[in-house]
Structure formats: C-alpha cells, structure tokens
C-alpha cells in the first residue's frame, strides 16, 4: 500500500543513490546540524549535563528520550510507507561482556568529565577549556585501549549476540517497543519535572559564565 509514492527508497547511500563524492559533504552538513542542536539545547555546559544525575537539570533526559522516540516512530512509519528499507539500516551489534563493562566505565567517565564526545566538541567551539581537556583525555583513553587490545581481544569479542533488535530480544514487535518507549518517556518527563522543581528550590543557583 503506497499512500505517497516517494520514488527513491532509502537508505540512499547503501542503495547507491548518492554519487560517491557527496558522502562527506552530507556528513559535514549533518554534523553542523547535530552540533547546532546540541549547543542550542545547552549541552555545551558540563554543569547542565550532569544535572541529570543530581536532579537539578534534566535537559539530557528530555532531549535524549525525545530524540530516540521520534527516530523510532519515524523509522517505523517510513518503513511502512516504503520510504526506507529497515532491513538495510545498521543495527548496532550486541557484545554483552564488553558493552556492559564499557557502559559502566563510560558512566563513571561521564560523571567525572561532565561531557560525552559529541557534547565536548560543541563545548570546545564556545571556548570551554575543560572540554578541550576532556577530548584530549578521549584521545589518550582510546590510545590506551588500542595498545592494550591484544590482551583483551577475547573479552572484546565475547558475548556476541549479533545485530539483535530489542523486538527480537524481548519477543515483541518493534512497534510495541516504540510505543513502550513513548510511555516510559512520558512518565519520566513528568516525574523529572516534579523532581527538578523540588531540587532547584534547595540548591544554589549556578552562575553561567
């Protein structure tokens, strides 16, 4: 059933619809949009970001959950309308062992550093030295990992479940996953709104520089 017939089916680059020279121009443009949205939402400030862990600023949760939900719903509708072939969209493969370890380590790094790689780029753009140091740390961390790689190669590849989707993992359709995410997100938005109001009354307002 083709309600609206878009003659070109996505994803464009894997299906050969875009001439090779253009990928990187597109990458640049997408990056500019990404950086702009992040900075405009307040992600260039480490204190805004860590607010999610302490209850005084939930911007991270709001932007993140909204984006995930919009993308999920969008992908499913696009797939249904025949505008994109969901089977060709890259699904991040699951490596249980290293992902569990890596995510916890990232969590610690997140709390200490107050940034993640993407947000640190935007913070560098507006002149934050702590972001520059964070990115330098990233460089060092990746270097350390790569040097140590031969030792942990087995661990790195362990627990490979392949490109498994949430729907497959939980035995439901991806539509149900998307709908559940919406419900969870809305509940989270409401609860964090209440928490934020309460926490902000108690702490020192922070001075933006």
């Amino acid at each position, binding site marked *: 059933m083709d309600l609206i017939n878009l003659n070109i089916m996505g994803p464009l680059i894997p299906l050969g619809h875009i001439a090779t020279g253009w990928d990187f121009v597109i990458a640049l443009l997408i990056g500019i949009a990404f950086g702009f949205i992040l900075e405009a939402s307040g992600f260039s400030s480490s204190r805004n970001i860590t607010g999610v862990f302490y209850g005084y600023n939930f911007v991270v949760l709001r932007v993140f959950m909204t984006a995930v939900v919009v993308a999920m719903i969008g992908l499913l509708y696009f797939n249904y309308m025949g505008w994109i072939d969901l089977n060709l969209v*890259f699904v991040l493969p699951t490596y249980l062992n290293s992902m569990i370890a890596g995510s916890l380590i990232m969590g610690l790094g997140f709390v200490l550093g107050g940034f993640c790689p993407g947000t640190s780029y935007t913070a560098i753009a507006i002149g934050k030295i702590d972001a520059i140091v964070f990115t330098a740390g990233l460089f060092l961390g990746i270097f350390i990992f790569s040097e140590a790689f031969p030792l942990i190669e087995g661990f790195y590849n362990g627990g490979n479940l392949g490109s498994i989707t949430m729907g497959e993992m939980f035995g439901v359709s991806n539509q149900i996953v998307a709908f559940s995410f919406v419900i969870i997100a809305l509940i989270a938005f409401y609860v964090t709104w209440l928490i934020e109001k309460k926490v902000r009354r108690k702490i020192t307002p922070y001075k933006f520089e």
Partner: protein
Amino acid sequence: MNKNYIFLAALLIILAGGLLFLPEKNNQVQENPENLMWDIAQPTRYVTTDQVAKMIIEKDPLFQLVDVRQNYDYEYFSLPGAYNVPIDSLLTEISDIILDTDDINTILYSDDDIKADQAWVIAKRMGYNNIYVMKGGLNCWIRTIIQPEAPPETAPITDLELYEFRKGASLFFTGAAISVDTDNKQGLKITRKKKETVAEGGC
C-alpha cells in the same frame, strides 16, 4: 503543567499507538524457482545472482566479474572487484587481457541480461572460454541480494534457506561487513549452502 505539553504528549501517544494498528503489508509477488546446476563439465551460460554473491563473499579465486555497461554507469555503481569492459570495447587489446583466461571464469553482467548476452555472444565468437552471464543483471542483483523478498511461510525449505542466505549477503554488501564477523554463526549461514547441488534463483 502547560496545556501545550499535554497536547504534545497526547500527540505522541497517538502517533506511537497508530503504529500498533498498522495493517500488515502483504507481498503479492511469488518467486518462481528455477533449478540451475552449476556443473563444470557442462557449463551453461547463466549463473544466478546468488551464486555470484556467494563467490564474492567466499572470495573465490577462480572468477572475475566484468561489467559490460558504459563507464559512467560503472563508476556510479557496480559490483565489488568488477572490471569494466564496455560492450563496444570488447575487441580491444585491454579487454583481451581480461577475457583471455582458461582457468578463471568470467561473469559478464549489465543492467538486465540484454547487453551481457550480446557481449557473451561476441566473446564466444572471438574464441574466449569460460564466459558466463549473471542472469537478471544488476536489476536482479538489487531485487534478490540487496533487497530480497521473504517467501511465504508455506514455501519449501530451500526457498527459506535461500532467503536466509540472501539476507546475510545483503548485510555483507551494504556495508555492515565492517562490524559483522563473517565467521560468526549469526548472519550469513554460508556453511549450510555447501550442498553444491541446487542453486535456486531468478527474478
């Protein structure tokens, strides 16, 4: 609580809920399985897109791909590792070097099989051996390997196995090969296809 937010939240629920009620898409197209024997003693002209995909994935050393379309088409999109010998250049010296092989199988292809068939006839008349044509050409390649259609559940097991192979091949060719381990059980299931007898295909 701002009224706008409540409106937006309701909108979100409606959109997500709508997804749950979308009817299943039904595929009307049925596949017509053709049986081709890949028999070295009696080579037939055509090879299927599945066989070509398998040879690329397994890095078979005994084959080469030749795209017989014009150069700009070849530059725009072609199969990995293919040479370009446009059909009107078949009689030049360079194509002679590519085509004159006794131990390597040359597989010609174009958008459909029209140009490739013509090229095959010319090549055979010039005395080259081991020349084959990929049936259906790149159009069939897209329809079987890149975007394979799922057979209905009542289809014979060979159809379903073929579909599994094609899904894996699709992942391989559209770039997920970077992150998918091909020697892992999930993904390609190539080992099962070593049965070597039936190769079904067709568009």
